[in-house]
């Protein structure tokens, strides 16, 4: 079966004062129609840059050095700007963490949504306005007619994010990429937005790529999960496998370091020592080596590849995928 989006071995480089940095190194993943893929990782791991490169939004200084990104069979990276404009905002859309800076501050909400519809659909302005109002009502904005006359700064963060979602839905996209859409919002609003995204996904039968650092959201939303660390995918698994038997030491540590309101308080959080290495692209071996509990001397030399792990996921760690006594330990909950 053809995947809706298939990203193959993508690498991104940024020109810096001191040379080139490579925030994304050989990342591959795919998204099928209607499914939710979560990309999870800490800040600086390359999760946003990955999707920005797919969307062609890297900006000055950043460029894709290798790889392909096939969306409905066509390579997004090989498209001309005009071809891209046809796909982006239409079949493939994106919402961002900071909804305020994503909206134009001097245009009303109504004119922005209407403009977006007019740009992609052969409808009259009056029809576009009706459609815009319907969309704004659908995303849960009370009194949409009034909201259409308002400017972005007069809306709350949650309402702005709803407007962004309405904008993204203008043309019934096949794939919506959401880059930390609720990080700046309160938990009760986050719950509303996530519920809305789930409903819309069903309604439009669209696929969702959700970028987040919150393991709780991953558990709630994902079908499949991609864990990124230092510019690489370190583990890929379906959500149940990931939480039941995480393979990569980083994923395991990440899961153990999340507090939960259901914990008793004698549980001590496991923390990952140290920090993400800087200039990680020059590291020969495993990039998690300096923080890993299971590190062995060989890890420092050997570049790691994604291999099937015993729990059912793929992990970029030769210890859990190849060392027999570790394999048993690697799947602590698997029966």
């Amino acid at each position, binding site marked *: 079966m053809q995947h809706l989006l298939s990203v193959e071995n993508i690498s991104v480089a940024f020109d810096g004062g001191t040379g080139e940095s490579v925030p994304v190194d050989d990342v591959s993943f795919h998204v099928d129609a209607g499914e939710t893929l979560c990309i999870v990782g*800490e*800040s600086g791991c390359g999760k946003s840059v990955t999707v920005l490169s797919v969307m062609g939004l890297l900006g000055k200084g950043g460029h894709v050095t290798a790889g392909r990104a096939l969306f409905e069979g066509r390579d997004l990276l090989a498209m001309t700007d005009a071809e891209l404009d046809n796909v982006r905002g239409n079949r493939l859309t994106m919402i961002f963490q900071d909804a305020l800076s994503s909206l134009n501050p001097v245009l009303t909400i109504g004119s922005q949504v209407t403009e977006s519809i007019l740009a992609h659909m052969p409808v009259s302005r009056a029809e576009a306005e009706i459609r815009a109002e319907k969309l704004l009502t659908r995303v849960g904005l009370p009194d949409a007619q009034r909201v259409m006359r308002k400017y972005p700064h007069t809306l*709350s963060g*949650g*309402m702005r994010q709803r407007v962004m979602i309405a904008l993204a839905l203008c043309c019934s996209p096949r794939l919506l990429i959401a880059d930390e859409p609720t990080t700046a919002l*309160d*938990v*009760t*609003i*986050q*719950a*509303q937005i*996530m*519920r809305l995204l789930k409903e819309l996904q069903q309604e439009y039968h669209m696929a969702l790529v959700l970028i987040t*650092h*919150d*393991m*709780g*959201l*991953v*558990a*709630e939303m*994902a079908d499949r999960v991609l864990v990124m660390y230092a510019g690489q995918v370190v583990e890929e698994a379906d*959500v*149940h496998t990931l*939480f039941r038997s995480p393979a990569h030491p980083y994923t395991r*540590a*990440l*899961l153990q*370091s*999340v*507090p*939960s*309101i*259901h*914990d*008793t*308080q*004698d549980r*001590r*959080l*496991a*923390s*990952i*020592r140290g*920090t993400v290495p800087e200039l990680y692209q020059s590291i020969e071996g495993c990039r998690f080596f300096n923080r890993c509990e299971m590190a062995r001397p060989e890890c420092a030399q050997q570049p790691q590849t994604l291999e099937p792990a015993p729990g059912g996921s793929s992990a970029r760690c030769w210890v859990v995928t190849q060392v027999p006594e570790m394999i048993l330990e690697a799947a602590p909950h698997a029966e």
Partner: protein
Amino acid sequence: MQNDTPQPPLEPDGAQTLLSVRGLIKQYPIRRGWFPRTVATVHAVDGVDFDLHRGETLGLVGESGCGKTTVGRQIVGLETPTAGEILYHGQPLPERLRGGERGDRTRLQMVFQDTFASLNPRKRIGDILGDPLLYHRLATRKTVWPEVHRLLDLVGLPANAAQRYPHEFSGGQRQRVGLARALSLKPDLIVCDEPVSALDVSIQAQILNLIRDLQHELQLTYLFIGHGLAAVHYVSDRIAVMYLGKIVEIAPSSDLFFAPQHPYTQALCDAAPVPDPEERKRDRIVLSGEIPSNLQPPAGCRFHTRCPYATELCKTVEPALIAHVPEDPGHMTACHHAQRWITKKGALQA
């Protein structure tokens, strides 16, 4: 409660009470016009009472704009209360400090969310930590360096950090500096204002553990302000939930999440994503609407505009923060219908 700090026995006269907050109110007038006059008032904090006992951590949770940070800032003296009292060891704190006389204010310190804005970028870490000591004459030029090194060691930073500037450190390390600075004057109470909200998950755990370890080592008392329920639960003995400038529920932290009595607390618990995909299908209250403006808080119970169970009574009469279960005086809720939740939860557990 499964807490590893031995809880000091509470004497009837409250001898172990370190800090009492009584009827705390903070209003910000909004002034407009050529001859500025007050056109509206922001009711940031609207009558907050609580006690902090020596050695405990009180968590303060709520959504943005609920006034939790303002409470913290008033306690350390960064804001002057509009009304109400803050008693330290039963005595009111001096409003402003004059030169030479520092008094009890140094016993109350604060750790901030934004580690970049709260550290002077032009000062070396050694000076950031050492200057308060010199200023308050707790050390001399000769004795300050060993003290700085002791502080750095306490928070897990290398001694050579003293020579470096804030920008050379990561967010987590800067928060360690923030903690070290708060500790430098040997405080009794530290107000932690969302100390981990800006940090990555793996670093959050480091800092939360450090905060807990320091408490054991130095017998500190914390007011821990946050919006992440799980993180607040992890460090707190008791938790107070704030909504629109008022405390709606206060309880030992295990009770609060296992048997919440206020619908808002329940909604907050339900809204917090649980890191377990098997939990997805659980019944959840998802609140509709957003937090109302604190220019004109709703009459009656402030939560009634979003509460799925609100009745006529809730729209007119403001509920008091009281204990609803006589055997459990430490669990107080401001809800007319709290009794309903208690029986319901009891039935669920049985």
